[in-house]
């Protein structure tokens, strides 16, 4: 398994699937939205096929080698989804008349019913169905989802099938993988809140299955349960939100609801108080799904799943669902376009939650040694950025500062895109690291009895100096980290800057309560710089900390390609898209990306963007911007390199892309931080600020005893009454049978007494 083998021939069966969409697209009269169902249905078909075939032909050689235990089938399904997505995006961008917001293609009339209204008339034939809803937000997320799912699936083929621990169970992985993808695609495409919720839950299920993929591990099973339950808490509130929304608008279709959010069902004016609670409920759902404070506890544990799962669920797609939902809520508050006024508080709450989470996650990430855990907290933190941005957007839109609102909305969504790409790649890269370290470890200990079972291939303290061993991975990871940190000009910089700036500007605008989130995310920017750099340096720079490192080399097929693709996108995609006006596009301010072939216009656009990013007109914002850059670009990385950086071992040489960074990190000198590492703060952070313990404790002290009490109550009180009746009857029976003494004299006596009683009764009543 160790040697690299060219397995691209296995991809040949994908060609027909590649051809499906182009074939349909060139047919006359075919609208891409009419085929949007293919995005969902392709994985839906693949799911049972992979699962059942895999179960039946588990040990079959062809299934293992040619189909990669279902990986190729999954890839085919995802390819169909991806190509359909590209078709839709293409249609949209060329301005195909068939695609606009009001054009809802209905797939399924799920249930239909009547409603008894408060005036005792029936509202006939309400339908809860599902159709497709396409706007820029959909397109962006759809692209992110299909594209990343495809790449991660590709990656997983290499990653999963070469790991002996997954033997014979990869079909399960791929089946659950496509089902998961289905959930994400469906959620993004759904044209109403109910179906958004439905697919949302499908994702929840799949995350449960995939996190618990190593079902025999107690920690994995526990993590899976925790993830499902925590998100379930949010989901339930989300559902309540749906109920309220339905009550207000009499429909959950975006088309109906967003048509005029101020008017409810039957033309009633919408009460902002009620709507506020609906939105709050929906937001709690989003908080759960996107792992924000206080429902964040599941995300780090969720790293128990295989690394592709982490990449898929916990960075690239699923956690974005919450963001997507909040972004979807914009029309409610968009006062400029029929939004309901008086909902600024909602925006503030969102921003605060985001700010708190961002700061908290970043600080916890400081002390993590598990490479995936660092990424997990970074995910949490970055998502929190986006929430803060969305919160600001909600705030701005609701006070009718729609220009600023749209800008920060676009920036947030752009950050979502950047983060997804970068984080997807980072996880895959970390997977590559873990995989190769693990292989190397196995290789060393092959055949020896006293294998080191405590060896943790995810622990960064076992790594170091991998830059030369894993050149592609190191490069990818460097660009990914840069994007996350927000190194100027790279990926995330463009979006993050916008979020921070606009959050501050909300404060400057006069909303003092915005100061908190603004400060928090500003601080977090610097912290991000630190922990991401720390991760990179610990892994790739410095001297190897474990003998295993010497044996690491990039050998596994299928792993490099996605990394390379994503490296490009991360490195320059942000800039390109920013120039193309993605921010305006995503916030629906403009209908299209500003493509141009005119060089002059292009350079104008570039200059505009750069100017906007580095030299905003507002002085205060300019200061904020530069402080951000300074914190994240200089302070964080430099401090990290002082603690963890260092040159490679003698004789090792990293490639061009990363070599400079390794060398640079060695230049800053060493700083001893052990006093800090031993501090109480560090321990608190290591324990995740005791949130898990708190929840656990509360559960154990209240819920479980109460459940036991109810069970006891049921057994001994409610059923006890029945049992008492039974035993008392039996007792009574024994007593009453004692009257039958066996003596005829007694019988006569009893009869006489009875006769006397009869007379008493007769007398009493009649005479």
């Amino acid at each position, binding site marked *: 398994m160790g040697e690299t083998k060219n397995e691209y021939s296995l991809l040949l069966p994908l060609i027909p699937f590649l051809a499906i969409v182009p074939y349909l697209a060139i047919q006359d009269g075919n609208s891409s939205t009419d085929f949007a169902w293919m995005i969902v249905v392709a994985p839906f078909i693949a799911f049972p096929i992979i699962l059942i075939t895999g179960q039946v032909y588990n040990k079959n050689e062809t299934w293992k080698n040619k189909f990669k235990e279902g990986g190729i089938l999954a890839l085919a399904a995802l390819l169909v989804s991806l190509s359909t997505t590209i078709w839709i995006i293409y249609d949209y961008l060329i301005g195909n008349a068939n695609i606009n917001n009001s054009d809802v293609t209905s797939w399924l009339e799920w249930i239909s019913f009547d409603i008894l209204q408060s005036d005792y008339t029936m509202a006939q034939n309400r339908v809860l169905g599902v159709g497709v809803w396409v706007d820029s937000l959909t397109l962006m997320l759809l692209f992110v989802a299909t594209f990343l799912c495809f790449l991660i699936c590709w990656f997983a083929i290499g990653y999963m099938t070469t790991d002996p621990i997954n033997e014979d169970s990869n079909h399960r992985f791929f089946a659950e993988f496509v089902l998961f993808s289905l959930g994400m695609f469906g959620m993004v495409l759904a044209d109403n809140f109910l179906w958004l919720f439905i697919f949302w839950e499908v994702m929840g299920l799949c995350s449960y299955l995939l996190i618990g993929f190593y079902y025999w591990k107690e920690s994995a099973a526990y993590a899976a349960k925790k993830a499902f339950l925590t998100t379930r808490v949010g989901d339930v509130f989300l559902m309540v939100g749906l109920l309220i929304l339905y009550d207000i608008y009499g429909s959950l279709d975006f088309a109906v609801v967003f048509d005029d959010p101020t008017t409810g069902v039957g033309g009633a004016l919408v009460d902002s108080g009620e709507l506020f609670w609906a939105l709050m409920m929906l937001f709690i759902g989003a908080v759960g799904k996107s792992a924000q404070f206080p429902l964040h506890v599941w995300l780090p544990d969720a790293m128990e799943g295989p690394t592709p799962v982490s990449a898929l669920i916990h960075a690239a797609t699923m956690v974005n669902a919450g963001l997507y939902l909040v972004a979807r809520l914009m029309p409610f508050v968009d006062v400029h376009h029929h939004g309901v006024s008086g909902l600024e508080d909602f925006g503030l709450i969102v921003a605060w939650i985001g700010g708190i989470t961002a700061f908290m996650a970043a600080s916890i990430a400081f002390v993590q040694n598990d490479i995936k855990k660092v990424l997990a907290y970074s995910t949490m933190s970055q998502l929190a950025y986006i929430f803060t941005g969305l919160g600001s957007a909600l705030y701005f839109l609701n006070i009718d500062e729609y220009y600023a609102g749209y800008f920060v909305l676009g920036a947030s969504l752009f950050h979502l895109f950047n983060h997804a790409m970068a984080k997807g790649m980072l996880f895959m890269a970390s997977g590559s690291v873990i995989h190769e370290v693990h292989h190397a470890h196995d290789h060393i200990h092959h055949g020896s009895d006293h294998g080191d079972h405590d060896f943790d291939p995810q622990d960064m303290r076992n790594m170091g100096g991998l830059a030369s061993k894993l050149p592609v991975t190191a490069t990818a990871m460097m660009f990914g980290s840069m994007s996350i940190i927000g190194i100027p000009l790279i990926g995330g910089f463009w979006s993050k800057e916008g979020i921070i700036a606009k959050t501050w500007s909300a404060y400057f605008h006069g909303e003092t309560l915005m100061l908190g989130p603004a400060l928090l995310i500003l601080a977090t920017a610097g912290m991000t710089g630190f922990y991401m750099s720390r991760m990179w340096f610990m892994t790739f720079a410095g001297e190897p900390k474990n003998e295993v490192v010497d044996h690491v080399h990039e050998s596994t097929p299928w792993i490099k390609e996605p990394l390379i693709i994503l490296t490009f996108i991360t490195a320059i995609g942000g800039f390109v898209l920013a120039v193309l006006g993605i921010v305006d596009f995503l916030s629906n301010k403009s209908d299209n990306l500003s493509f141009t072939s005119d060089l002059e216009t292009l350079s104008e656009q570039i200059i505009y963007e750069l100017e906007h990013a580095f030299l905003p007109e507002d002085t205060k914002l300019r200061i904020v911007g530069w402080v951000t850059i300074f914190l994240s670009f200089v302070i964080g990385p430099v401090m990290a390199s002082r603690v963890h950086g260092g040159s490679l071992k003698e004789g090792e040489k990293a490639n061009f892309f990363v070599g400079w960074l390794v060398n640079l990190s060695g230049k800053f000198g060493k700083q001893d931080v052990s006093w800090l590492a031993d501090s109480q703060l560090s321990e608190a952070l290591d324990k995740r600020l005791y949130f898990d313990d708190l929840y656990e404790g509360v559960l154990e002290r209240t819920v479980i005893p109460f459940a036991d009490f109810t069970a006891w109550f049921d057994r001994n009180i409610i059923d006890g009454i029945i049992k008492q009746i039974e035993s008392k009857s039996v007792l009574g029976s024994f007593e009453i*049978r*004692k009257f*039958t*003494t*066996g*003596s*005829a*004299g*007694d019988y*006569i*006596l009893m009869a*006489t007494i009875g006769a006397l009683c009869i007379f008493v009764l007769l007398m009493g009543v009649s005479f």
Partner: protein
Amino acid sequence: MIDPSWIAGLGVILFGIGLLGAFTRKNSIIVLMCIEVMLNAANLNFVAGASHYGDVNGWVFTAIAIAIAAAEVAIGLAILLSLYSTQETISLDEANILRN
């Protein structure tokens, strides 16, 4: 001519004696006799009624009731005999295999 109510009064007394005896005495022969006494109380009533109403039916009832009483005694004695032959007692209290 005795007033029929005196006859009936005697009947009440006899009936009381019979009933009292029936549940106080343990010897079944005596109980049987008490039953006879009760039946005779009824007979006295019939007689009293017959004489009061001048109705011949009352006499007939009396005659038949006496016959019934005779049959009853016959059967009763037979049953008591068979009881005695198996359990060697005719006490109401002692014959109590069947109970509860």
